[in-house]
């Protein structure tokens, strides 16, 4: 970012917003906007509590399970849909419907089917994340260099080698892009799932704070969740950049 001819670090814009927030909070313009400093103070007060760590560990576990399932199902299914034309046609339509559908609307039905509990949240995370992973994997495998495939066959690659040594690596940039988008959607899934169920994990805390009008704590939690989502997506983005460097001539 360049301002008045000087190079300014990106974080500076964040700082500006924090200051504006602080000013609005101090001015007591709205009861739902406490000063930023009070929110930070609340965050440092919340994090060490047992209630928070219990909620966070439940949420993290649901997130990890849902994401893990989404990766285990999404990547192989995307590969299959790219390599088996009929499967790609049959499932492609469904995947495209579900990727644009508002999954949150399905959560109440999920509650009725799998019960009100952690399973519902895991399934919600899975549904939020899996479709974008499928589609990106499919695109990556489909666009894999045809002459690399011919080359591998020529030099005697068997089926397994073709997948592990050529197709998968060739599609890795697209797969990782799908994983990053899936992770972001997965964080939404865990929060929305728990909010709708409202009795477990971070969702329970959100519900608790907003019902008792604990705005400092509420905003503190929002910031923690935002920071988590941002950090994890940046971590995948870092991997992506490393891979793209090697694949830059495709």
């Amino acid at each position, binding site marked *: 970012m360049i301002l008045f001819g000087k190079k300014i670090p990106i974080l500076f814009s964040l700082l500006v917003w924090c200051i504006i927030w602080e000013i609005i909070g101090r001015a007591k313009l709205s009861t739902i906007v406490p000063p930023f400093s009070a929110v930070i103070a609340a965050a440092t007060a919340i994090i060490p509590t047992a209630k928070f760590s219990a909620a966070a560990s439940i949420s993290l576990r649901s997130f990890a399970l849902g994401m893990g399932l989404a990766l285990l199902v999404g990547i192989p299914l995307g590969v299959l849909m790219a390599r088996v034309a009929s499967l790609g046609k049959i499932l492609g339509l469904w995947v495209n419907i579900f990727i644009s559908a508002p999954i949150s609307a399905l959560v109440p039905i999920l509650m009725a089917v799998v019960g009100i509990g952690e399973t519902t949240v895991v399934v919600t995370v899975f549904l939020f994340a899996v479709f974008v992973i499928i589609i990106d994997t499919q695109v990556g495998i489909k666009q894999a260099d045809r002459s690399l495939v011919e080359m591998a066959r020529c*030099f*005697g690659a068997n089926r397994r080698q073709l997948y592990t*040594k050529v197709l998968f690596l060739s599609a890795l940039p697209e797969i990782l892009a799908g994983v990053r988008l899936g992770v972001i959607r997965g964080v939404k899934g865990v929060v929305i799932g728990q909010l709708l169920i409202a009795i477990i994990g971070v969702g329970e805390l959100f519900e608790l704070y907003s019902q008792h009008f604990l705005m400092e704590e509420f905003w503190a939690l929002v910031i923690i969740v935002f920071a988590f989502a941002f950090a994890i997506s940046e971590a995948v983005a870092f991997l992506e950049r490393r891979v793209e460097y*090697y694949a830059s001539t495709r």
Partner: protein
Amino acid sequence: MPADAIIELKAVGKTYEAGVEALSDINLGLLHGALSTLLGPSGCGKTTLLKIIAGLIPTSRGEVWVKGRKVDGPGPERAFVFQDFALLPWANVLRNVAFGLELRGLAKDQREQIARNHINEVGLKAFESSYPHQLSGGMRQRVGLARALTVDADIILMDEPFSSVDEQTRRKFQEELLDLLRYKKKTVIFVTHSIEEAVYLSDRIVLLSPRPGTVSQIIQPSIDRQGKDPDEIRRDKNYLDTVDQIWQILKQYV
């Protein structure tokens, strides 16, 4: 069919799914230890024919026999050099060159030692750990050639290997290729659309007619290359006559 043919094509034809007939009734014997060129106008199916020999594309009619065995897929006695190089972008030169041996399950230090010898042979000693995107087109094709040499196949199939390489590099590359392959006594099948390249390099030139491709004529340039430098060859009367003879035939197709 010549007695010492290492590759035999028996009434080979290829029709694509859309009904396009690319090749029709090709009968051809390609000689052991010789450099044969498939030459023809674009769209005559010469690359298709090469990929059929490689076992990458199935025939619609007829059979291909290599070293007395019927071809039904790629085999270790045939190696391929690709027009677009087909190098793994995420692997360095050493791993790319050793890739054929990696697929065969050879131990890492063993295959890398073999690969290093061939990297030296094609003049890329200093570039072992470079990645393809750091190399020029000519250097990338040297990697492609080294990879084909590393698997020690008897037959090297080359699909317009110099078409993505600039003219100066191409000439130097052609000269080196001749030296290297003569010395190694490989059988080479070379696809090109350049008459000069074909005459300069080949022992035999198979002229293909336009679609559907058939063998229109086989020409054996009787150029004495022994002890002559490349410029002498290019001024040789036989060389110039053969180029002209082929042009007179191909002229009617374009």
